[in-house]
Every structure is written in structure tokens, then in C-alpha cells.
């Protein structure tokens, strides 16, 4: 077998990277267990946990009734007993059913009681897969306003694995949003290191360097931003793309460093615009780097509507490369 073939064999998808993180963390630490709906022998709705039930048994890959509040609550209780539970929401939209557990029980626990609740709640988020109003959501902003929850959303296979490991090892609760559009996207296949690694929570990455404007984004929108940056380059506009990787805590320094360089910013996300996390990023830039700005900050986000199902509707709803290019063109001419 040639080295090239070996390299090819180790290429993994975004989804496989997540599974590798789960498997390796379960091998590393017997306190790590999984809990959720249909995650056992069935392997989960998206097959993220496939094979883990066979490898680790029903005691560590626990199937539950359809009870998101109970899944998160039980994870929290087990965490207080020294375990490191990873709870799966079958679709992240259903995290709303555990909203009270997350925003009132889990997020406030360390502050109230002096000891943490180290759980990970993970699941597939995002649209573009014709999932309709209840299987396409991006709920990060609902939780960003609840102090005590970390929120992570990776955009690469390397980050997905490294950030999920970091989340499982974190002493505090972490919401881990996996954009389902990325799960098996061929473009994201990559060879991962053989050795154990983590990607630290709270550190953004500059995915493309540029000088004229900054696009601050995360998750699947990173690729829309990169595609837009290609188009903008053809028009002579140099766009820098900042992938937040972690939504809370926000890597303010990386965002500000980019904006101080380019003096113009677009904030791009897939959730609806009003009340979206883009407003928070925009306000942070304005508070801390106002004098560096040459133009208003533009938010590019989805419509203020539910996520519609039919392809022409959903495509109209989601930010497209054209939308980003149009916004960037106007911004650079400001």
C-alpha cells in the first residue's frame, strides 16, 4: 500500500470526525457516556453514534424515551455524580423541549451552587437540507443570553473532532451545534492527526486573509463566505473570513484584530436576523473598535420568518453567496 493510499484511507467526513471524538473520549475516560433517542444499536438518526453501542454497550450508550427535558436533566444529574454525559438532541430544534433544563437548571448551577455541571448537549442544526420549520433551526441566540452555557459550532472535520473533545473535557456545560449540511459534504473530508488533540473553546480562526473587509461567521456559513470571497476577489475586493468556531465565549480579540485591519465588517449567520447573534457581534465591534470602522456593520442573515420547506422558499430564506457578494460590494463602496 502506498503512502498516498494510506493518506486517502484516513480521510474522514465531518460526521466521522464527530464519531471519532466520541469514541476516543469514551475510550479515554470511562466516565464519558452518551444519552439520547435512538442512539443505541440504531446509531442515531444521522448515524453519528453508529458502532458505539456495539463497542461500549447499553450502559454507556443509553437510549431514552422521547423526553428531551429528561435527557438533559438526567445528564445534569449524572454530571453531578462525576460522569461526563454527552446528550444527543436528534435534531437541535428539539433542544427547545429542554430549554428550561438548560437555561434555568444547567446554566445557573455553578453560579448558584458553587459546582459545575459538565455536560455536552450536541445535535444537528441548520438548514439547506429541505427539513422545513422544525428540522432546520439554529438556536444559538436563544442560549447566548443565558450566562453559564458555552456554545460551539465547528465548520471543519478537524475542528469538529478537536472542539468536541474540548467540550467533553470542559468543566462547564457546552452546547455543541453540528451543521447537518456539513455532515457528509465531500469538500470537508480531510485527514486528521493520529494523535490526540483538542481545539480550544473560545478561539476563532481566520479562514482566509483579506484587507478590504471582514466577514465574521461560523458553521456552514463559513463556506458561503469563502465562496463569496472568491467572487469578490475577481472584482478586486479582498475579503477576510473569520470563523468564530465558538459563539460563547466570543473570541473578541480575533474579531477586533481583523476589523482593525480591514475597517469594514459583515456579520453573517444562518439564524434569522432579528435578535440573532450577529447583533451581539456587531455591538461588540462598535463598542470596542468604533474608531477603526469606515462603514456601518452589515448583518447578513436569514429572513425573519420560520424556515420554509420548499426549495425555492428555503433558498430565498437562507443567505446565499449572491447576498454576501452584494452586501460586500456595497460595503466596500461606502
Amino acid at each position, binding site marked *: 500500500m502506498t503512502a498516498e493510499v494510506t493518506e486517502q484511507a484516513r480521510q474522514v467526513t465531518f460526521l466521522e470526525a464527530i464519531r471519532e471524538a466520541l469514541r476516543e473520549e469514551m475510550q479515554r475516560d470511562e466516565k464519558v457516556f452518551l444519552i439520547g433517542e435512538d442512539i443505541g444499536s440504531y446509531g442515531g438518526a444521522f448515524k453519528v453514534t453508529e458502532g458505539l453501542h456495539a463497542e461500549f454497550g447499553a450502559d454507556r450508550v443509553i437510549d431514552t424515551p422521547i423526553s428531551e*427535558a*429528561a435527557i438533559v436533566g438526567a445528564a445534569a444529574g*449524572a454530571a453531578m455524580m462525576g460522569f461526563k454525559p454527552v446528550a444527543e438532541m436528534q435534531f437541535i430544534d428539539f433542544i427547545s423541549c429542554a430549554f428550561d433544563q438548560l437555561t434555568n437548571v444547567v446554566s445557573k448551577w455553578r453560579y*448558584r451552587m458553587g459546582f459545575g455541571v459538565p455536560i455536552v448537549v450536541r445535535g444537528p442544526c441548520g438548514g439547506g437540507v429541505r427539513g422545513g420549520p422544525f428540522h432546520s433551526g439554529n438556536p444559538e441566540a436563544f442560549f447566548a443570553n443565558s450566562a453559564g452555557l458555552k456554545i460551539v459550532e465547528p465548520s471543519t472535520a478537524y475542528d469538529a473532532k478537536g472542539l468536541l473533545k474540548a467540550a467533553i473535557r470542559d468543566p462547564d456545560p457546552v452546547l455543541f451545534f453540528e451543521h447537518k449540511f456539513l455532515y457528509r459534504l465531500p469538500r470537508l473530508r480531510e485527514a486528521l492527526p493520529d494523535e490526540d488533540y483538542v481545539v480550544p473553546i473560545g478561539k476563532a480562526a481566520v479562514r482566509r486573509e483579506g484587507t478590504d473587509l471582514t466577514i465574521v461567521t461560523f458553521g456552514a456559513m463559513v463556506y458561503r463566505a469563502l465562496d463569496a470571497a472568491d467572487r469578490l476577489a475577481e472584482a478586486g475586493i479582498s475579503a477576510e473570513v473569520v470563523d468564530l468556531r465558538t459563539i460563547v465565549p466570543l473570541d473578541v480579540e480575533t474579531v477586533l484584530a481583523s476589523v482593525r485591519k480591514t475597517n469594514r465588517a459583515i456579520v453573517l449567520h444562518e439564524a434569522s436576523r432579528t435578535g440573532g447573534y450577529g447583533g451581539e457581534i456587531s455591538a461588540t465591534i462598535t463598542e470596542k473598535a468604533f474608531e477603526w470602522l469606515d462603514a456601518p456593520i452589515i448583518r447578513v442573515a436569514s429572513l425573519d420568518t420560520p424556515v420554509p420547506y420548499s426549495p425555492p422558499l428555503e433558498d430565498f430564506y437562507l443567505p446565499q453567496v449572491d447576498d454576501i457578494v452584494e452586501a460586500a460590494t456595497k460595503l466596500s463602496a461606502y
Partner: protein
Amino acid sequence: MSTLSREQHHRIHYFLRLTRMVEEKLGNLSAQGKVIGSLYRSLGQEGTAVGSAAALEPDKGDIAAPILRDLGAVLTMGGTPTEVFQQYMAKNGPTRGRELNIHFGAPERNFIGPVSMLGEMIPLMAGIALGFKMRKQPGVALCYIGDGGASTGPTHEGLNLAAVLDLPFILIIENNGYAYSTPTDRQSRLTRLADRALAYGIPGVTVDGNDVIAVYEATREAADRARRGEGPTLIESVTFRMKGHAQHDNQAYVPREVIEEWQAKDPITRHERYMLENGIADHEDIDRLFARISAELDAAVAEAESTPMPEGVTALLDVFENGVAERAPWLAPIS
């Protein structure tokens, strides 16, 4: 005749009296303007809280999650009167001023504090029970809920999960007649809330909540069952809330004759009578107990009063293990 030893009866009676006298002391402190916020009484319900908590075995790891009217369970499990006074006075006590009243505790202390969203502790305590099961430890998780809280969604989800996973879990529904101003018959069509157990495929028992011995024995039986790996039990403890929801509530919606009826069933008087009639205690013992608790509480109040308030700037701490919350960026940094 109960199976309790003389020593156990004395221990239970101590915690019954202690609970009532702590609350009376809190009433005095409140009248003096020293309590910040409202005072929630468990008058008349001490038998349920103390009897159930006394049945647990902390040396086996058992953990209770008392709710608002379970001061007796907090004290029985090891919470101290000083801590309760510190909490009610918003001092730098067990929660360093972040939380109110009996919202404190930790698993290693065998009790954990509640949240105000009723029922949410049930899935969480199912998780504690799951922890016992996964560690193959003999511990039992005991959770409390009221007749009102039992109407919430997480109550169902948590109890169902505990049942499906066969967890060492006990849920006590304290049916005290009213949820704030709403009578139990507006919470449920059931006349016997323990019948809900049928829906989960687990045993459900109804017990006289003002009979501390009956509560103790029902809880002990449920705990033994849980320890044998036979899963959860639902216990309905029928009692009565003798005061309003909180201090401001004069309970005008409760018929006077109902209050009088339950006054005659007071759990502490009843247990005292039981001890006297069965030669377990005499009047001198009871008098000595009063004097002992009075002295303990005077000392506890003094300690709580001398505890400082938390410093405002500490509000920034402990959202996460690492890191300090940021103050508004336009304000001067904190040295």
C-alpha cells in the same frame, strides 16, 4: 407499633421541633426586617419532610432534593440552621448570596437545592439515580414535588425515564391541599395522586403525611426496593399547608373549618403524644429538647447575623470555572 428505635424517635422528634422552631425564628427575624424577601413556611408539613429524609441512609450515599416546604428534610440531611438563617438574610453563606432560602446543598452533603421551575429536579434526580446505578453503588435519589408541581411536564418526563431505566429513585408528591391558591382538585381529576404510578408501571402508595412514622416507613420501604434494583416508587404524602403560599398570602381562600380540622392533626403534637404514650419520652425530655434547640438557634442566629454580606464585585465570579464575567466596557476596570 413502629419498628423505630427509641433513639430514632428522639432523632426524628428533634428535627420536627428544630424545623418548626427555625421557621418561628425566621418569623421573628422577618418581623425585625432582617429577612430579605419572603418567608415560606412548612407549618403542618414537617412530618413529611422529616419522616422521609430520616428514612434515607447517607452512609449509603442517598441524596435528597427538597423543595420549598421541605426545610425539615434539609435539616435532617445535615443543612444547618446557621446556613438557613444566612440564606434568608442574603449573607455570604452557603451560596455566597446568589440564592435564597433553602436553595443550597451539594451531592456530597446528601442533599441538593431546588430550582423554582417545579418538576425540573425530577429528571435531574433521575440522573443522580442513574449515577448510582452506573457506579453500582447502593445510593437512592429522593425527590420531592407538590400537588401543583406534579402537573408539570418534566415531572412526567423524569418519572417516566426513571421507571424505564429502573433507577433507584423515589418521588414523593406532597399533597398539601393547595398550590398557591389553587386547590388540588384543580390540578388533577385524581382523588389519589399515587394512582399516577400506574401510568409509569411502578408502585404508588398514599401515606398520611402528618404521621411521621408512616412517612418514614413508606420511604424506607421504597428505598429498600430501589436498593434491591426494583426501580422507582411514587409516594403521595397527604398533608396540609397551614400557612399561605408566602407571608403576604393570608390564605383567605381556605375554609376556616379545614384549617381547624388539620390543626388537630398537627404532626409534631401527634409524634410527641406517641412518644409520651409509649414511654419513649417524658415531659421533661420534651422540655429539655425545647431548651436545647432554643440555645442552638440563638447561637445560629448570632453567627448568621455576624456573617458579612457578599461583596458586590463577587457577582462577576463563577459563571464558569475559569474566567470572570466582564463588566460593561464603558465602566472603569475593577482593580
